């Protein structure tokens, strides 16, 4: 087969590596060193190769000794440092989990013997090619690159598949790597390790060298194994035992030839190379030692020896021996460097695997999603959910669409998919007690068939989540949470229940997706919905915060009179599988305008209903939000109560939620804008607070914002300034509730 290297075509053979083919074609050089630009050539025939680095296709830094030839392969030499470029062709990287009784790493004689000995399910991983073995799962061309707690091995198969192998026992038969020797110009092309020289067929013009063998102890070290210096081998070998990891074969040092005597050679030390990947020489080690460094870890950092892609595979022990010689100590006294995963470089693309593109992260959608798409909704990400942000009509910009949707809810009736709200079923004789302890307000006094707004704080008294609590029975509640916090709130409740109050007889269940829910909101909500349901919707029969069971458009439903806009509103909950049918029937009834999260945000902000995570940031108490009323004065204890008595949480100058009205009613403040009293004082300008929400309001006929402002409630009426990039915007602080502060619209259009 044909292949090319550095623009020259050569003849290759099936099953040959690129390095072998180059050497057989008489190419002993062809590479350059990374820092000194010295000529280099193939030095080894294994994964320890320091010189023969190539770019092959999209692989920016491959070892020619590991690249198998294919027809038409094109390789370019790389001087030490690869350059990552956008892939020219899509390559599939994936991952695989496996479990086995025995994992053997390395298929040399010791590894094959260990695998053949059996002991249950056996996996044999070999870096190169490997003949099949009866009853053994063989993974050839597979590099085990990491060993982790619990006998977890991470391996790379053919550079394309990441294996996570959980084994009861691991046998390391990783063998040993030949060491170079030291002499002047020991880096020149043609100098190669003696074993490679033999296996390459004693190429003409090449010079074999051998300084003995170094056991490949990296995985043993990663597993937590100790080492001891072996004078006969002239290198560290595994010492002691590990519970589930054992070494076999020459990695133990046994069977390796005696190391030749070691001495510093004569010659120019700046041309006696210790680490070919870093162009580091005996002179560099001498400088490090002269600077007072004695530990090999320090010598490594000073000289960069062992920090190249090969991580000291051929240079580590050599550097230790040189330093010991210069210091006049035994090499065993200098210690060893730490071996960390990965043993061989792993491409990021492999670690990403299939978690990219459409599979990068789950996209969660509600049962009504398809219809939102049909309606042309523009979506926004809320956690992993896609929620309709607004529904533009043809030619309509976002601002116009949102103003139209807001106006529909304020003046007529709108409908919104609110299925993403977290929903937790709380049941048991002590359910009310649990909720009393977790919410800041009293839940136990809630009558069956009614619901109540509730706030949860962390132990530090800061708002954690809010939602509506429904009492469905004496011992049965349903708590809603914010969309993004559903899992966190359930975990929070379980934590208290399981670790602090196991005596409470309460059981929790996530029912978020059991229900699809549609909010019908606006002064005409009653007139719109009444013809579609047998549930009496008039104010006397169905008061604010009441719950009714019945049918809506023929579907069994739970209807709740809750409002996140200040308007008369009903939430209709049905079995999630019938959500789409409900929405279509409501649409079909005509007259209700679909509205998205952006309109919802504007409407709730006009009423100063905070959004946890937008108007709060983990440093905000219910009192800061102006919601003293939601913090019970009667309850003996609830999570966060103690913190409300801390001096810091009752300071008068805490940041408090207020409304902000820019002087220019068309000026939309950016969310996050800082607010200051006087923009003209020299820096540092004291900050008063920041804008948390900012919108255009159809109902107010102007822009407005919510902000957390130091002592804000006491500053209502004051003018503050928002210094923006190119101008300073004056604005007046106002009471937070800008729309219908008397709450007259809650029951419908005021008379």
């Amino acid at each position, binding site marked *: 087969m044909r292949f090319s290297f550095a623009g020259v075509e050569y003849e290759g053979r099936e099953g040959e590596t690129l390095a072998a083919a180059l050497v057989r074609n008489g190419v002993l050089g062809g590479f350059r060193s990374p820092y000194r630009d010295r000529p280099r050539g193939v030095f080894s025939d294994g994964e320890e190769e320091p010189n023969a680095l190539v770019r092959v296709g999209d692989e920016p830094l491959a070892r020619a000794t590991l690249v198998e030839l294919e027809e038409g392969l094109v390789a370019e030499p790389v001087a030490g440092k690869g350059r990552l470029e956008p892939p020219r062709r899509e390559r599939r990287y994936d991952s695989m989990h*496996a479990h086995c009784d025995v994992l053997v790493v390395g298929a040399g004689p010791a590894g094959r013997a260990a695998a053949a000995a059996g002991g249950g399910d056996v996996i044999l991983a070999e870096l190169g090619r490997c003949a099949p073995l009866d009853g053994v799962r063989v993974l050839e061309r597979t590099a085990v690159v990491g060993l982790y707690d619990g006998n977890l091995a991470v391996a790379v198969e053919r550079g394309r598949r990441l294996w996570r192998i959980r084994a009861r026992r691991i046998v390391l038969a990783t063998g040993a790597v030949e060491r170079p020797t030291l002499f002047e110009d020991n880096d020149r092309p043609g100098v190669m390790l003696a074993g490679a020289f033999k296996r390459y067929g004693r190429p003409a013009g090449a010079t074999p060298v051998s300084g003995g063998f170094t056991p490949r102890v990296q995985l043993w070290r990663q597993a937590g194994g100790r080492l001891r210096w072996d004078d006969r081998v002239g290198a560290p070998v595994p010492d002691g035992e590990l519970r589930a990891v054992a070494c076999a074969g020459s990695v133990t040092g046994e069977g390796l030839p005696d190391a030749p005597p070691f001495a510093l050679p004569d010659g120019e030390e700046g041309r006696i190379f210790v680490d070919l990947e870093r162009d580091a020489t005996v002179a560099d080690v001498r400088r490090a030692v002269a600077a007072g460094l004695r530990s090999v870890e320090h010598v490594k950092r000073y000289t960069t020896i062992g920090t190249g892609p090969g991580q000291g595979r051929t240079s580590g022990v050599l550097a230790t021996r040189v330093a010991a010689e210069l210091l006049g100590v035994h090499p065993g006294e200098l210690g060893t460097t730490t071996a960390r995963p990965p043993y061989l470089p792993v491409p990021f693309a492999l670690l990403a695997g299939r978690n990219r593109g459409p599979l990068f992260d789950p996209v969660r*959608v509600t049962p009504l999603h398809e219809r939102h798409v049909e309606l042309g909704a523009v979506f926004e990400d809320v956690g992993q959910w896609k929620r309709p942000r607004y529904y533009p009509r043809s030619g309509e910009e976002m601002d116009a669409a949102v103003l139209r949707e807001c106006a529909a809810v304020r003046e007529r009736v709108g409908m919104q998919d609110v299925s993403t709200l977290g929903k937790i*079923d709380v049941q*048991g004789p002590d359910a009310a007690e649990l909720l009393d302890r977790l919410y800041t307000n009293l839940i136990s006094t809630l009558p069956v068939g009614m619901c109540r707004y509730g706030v949860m704080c962390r132990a530090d008294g800061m708002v954690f989540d809010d939602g509506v609590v429904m009492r469905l029975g004496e011992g049965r509640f349903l708590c809603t949470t914010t969309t993004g916090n559903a899992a966190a709130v359930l975990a929070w409740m379980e934590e208290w229940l399981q670790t602090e109050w196991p005596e409470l007889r309460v*059981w929790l269940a996530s029912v978020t997706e*059991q229900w*699809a829910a549609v909010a019908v909101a606006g002064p005409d909500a009653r007139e719109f919905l009444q013809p579609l349901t047998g549930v009496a919707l008039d104010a006397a029969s169905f008061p604010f915060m009441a719950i009714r069971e019945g049918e809506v458009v023929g579907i069994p439903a739970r209807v709740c009179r809750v409002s996140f806009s200040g308007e008369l509103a009903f939430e209709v909950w049905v079995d*999630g*599988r019938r959500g789409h049918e409900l929405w279509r029937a409501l649409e079909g009834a005509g007259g209700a305008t679909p509205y998205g999260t952006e309109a919802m945000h504007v409407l709730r902000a006009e009423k100063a209903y905070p959004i946890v995570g937008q108007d709060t940031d983990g440093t905000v108490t219910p009192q800061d939000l102006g919601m003293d009323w939601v913090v019970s004065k009667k309850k003996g204890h609830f999570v966060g109560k103690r913190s409300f008595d801390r001096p810091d949480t009752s300071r008068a100058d805490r940041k408090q939620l207020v409304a902000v009205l820019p002087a220019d009613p068309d000026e939309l403040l950016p969310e996050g804008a800082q607010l200051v009293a006087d923009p003209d004082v020299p820096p540092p300008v004291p900050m008063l607070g920041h804008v948390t929400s900012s919108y255009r309001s159809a109902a107010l006929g102007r822009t407005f914002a919510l902000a957390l402002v130091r002592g804000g409630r006491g500053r209502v009426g004051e003018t503050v300034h928002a210094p923006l990039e190119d101008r300073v915007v004056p604005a007046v602080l106002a009471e937070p509730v800008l729309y219908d502060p008397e709450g007259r619209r809650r029951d419908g259009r005021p008379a």
Partner: protein
Amino acid sequence: MAVLREVPVEAQVLVRGEPRPRFPLEPNTSAGDVLWLGPDEWLVLGGREAEYADAAVAVDVSAARVVLELAGDDAREVLAQGCSLDLRSGSFGPGRCAQTLVARTEAILHCAGDDAIRLLVRPSFAPYLRAWLEDAIDGVRR
């Protein structure tokens, strides 16, 4: 080659408290359509809340999970691409179940037969899990 399909399940109920007759007691096992999820927690496929009125707690979760089934002699290999559990037939044979992660979503796995593994997943995650499984089937085929 593994085949993915959705299994229609009309009703599901989560039962908490004391075990009832025919409920499995061994962790991570099933008895018929009753799956052990915890020491006091079972999921009854086909069960309805009203049938368990005398349990400590029964919650209708009929719409809370979609049931997918992956069948074929390489079904386990498909799943192993994104699930760290030991799925070998000796460890996860017929009648075994587990709550775990598959790729980036939670799922309940239930081994319904020698070469059939069911995945119970939240409906909102189902499109993702389907797409992931179809991609993984493709990965095994290569």
